[in-house]
């Protein structure tokens, strides 16, 4: 019998919006607008997230236990979010997956250029 796949693999591949949100929360907890700003940066994925998309995605990430509310708030309307352990593992797994894809793409591009 095959061993069960690690739970983080069930969430892959991530959509660009979800990857950008997890990436924004990878280092520290953030509130909604801070996540939006981070996601819009080229290094954060360059994704323009509207508030509706952001909170819909956050809601599903909380339901899937990848993100949680910190309970900390500096304003009744500004709540902070952070990655859970599973969220960190999913982000790491997605990063590895993308890195492997990138390596393959670079190798194949290099072979093609060498042949040309």
């Amino acid at each position, binding site marked *: 019998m095959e061993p069960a796949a690690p739970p983080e693999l069930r969430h892959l591949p991530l959509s660009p919006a979800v990857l950008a949100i997890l990436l924004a929360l990878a280092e520290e907890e953030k509130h909604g*607008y801070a996540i939006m700003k981070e996601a819009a940066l080229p290094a954060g994925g360059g994704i323009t997230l509207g508030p*509706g*998309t952001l*909170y819909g995605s956050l809601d599903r990430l909380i339901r899937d236990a990848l993100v949680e509310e910190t309970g900390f708030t500096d*304003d009744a309307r*500004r709540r902070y979010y952070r990655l859970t352990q599973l969220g960190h593992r999913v982000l790491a797994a997605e990063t590895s997956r993308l890195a492997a894809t990138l390596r393959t793409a670079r190798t194949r591009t290099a072979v093609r250029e060498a042949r040309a």
Partner: protein
Amino acid sequence: MNSPNAFLFALYRQALRLYPARLRVRYQNQILQTLCDAHAEARRPLLFWPSLFLDLLQSSVKEHLLMTRDRAVRRPILFHALTLGLVLTLMGGAAAVTMQQMLRRGANHPQIEMGRRYAHAIAAGARPQDLFPAERIDLRGSLEPFAIFYSESGDPIASTASLDSAVPVPPSGIFDYARKYQLDMVTWQPQPGVRMAAVLRHVSGPNPGFVLTGRSLLLVEEQEDLLRRGTFITWFVLMGLLALGALFLSRAESHRPLSA
């Protein structure tokens, strides 16, 4: 700090109702705060509101679709029952409409042949007054087919039927259509409660004009009514059985032992 336009802000707040209630209740305040934060730092104010409303529309549709999918996953029996109900309704509806159309088109049949015969004879030189039987039927009560010949200008010349002692005349648009396409098949209601399947044929030759042949739709409409009632009762019973079945299966599912 520049604050968002009060009208657009209020509009956006109202538009948040497009989201599923659970999501709106939980995140409304945060969404509005994020909007204020984003507005304060917006680099392209002209694009700010359109992109915001576009995002709202797209994400609200997405959230509703995802919510429906989640519900279907959580309650597959209900979802399958609803899908089956929808399919049965569509199929039953299509079958009923088809049968109704067949009944209605069938109501034209004796008149088409009758009209063709009269039109050929008149085009060959016969006078309509000589062709049509002298006795007249009353359109209000008779189920018999009848024929009326109208001149090119739409005046009745000869008729085998009358309504309240006069020969009824259809609207001029029907003559125009038949003049252009030679033939028109319509449901004609010269008076409330008197409906007929009428076929109007344009005739050329020495006695140009129009031959209208028709018959009462009373029987056909009774059959249509019967069909409608039968379809509705069948649909109602089927939906009831489907609901009972879904309820029974849902209860059986929820009471199934975990080890089974």
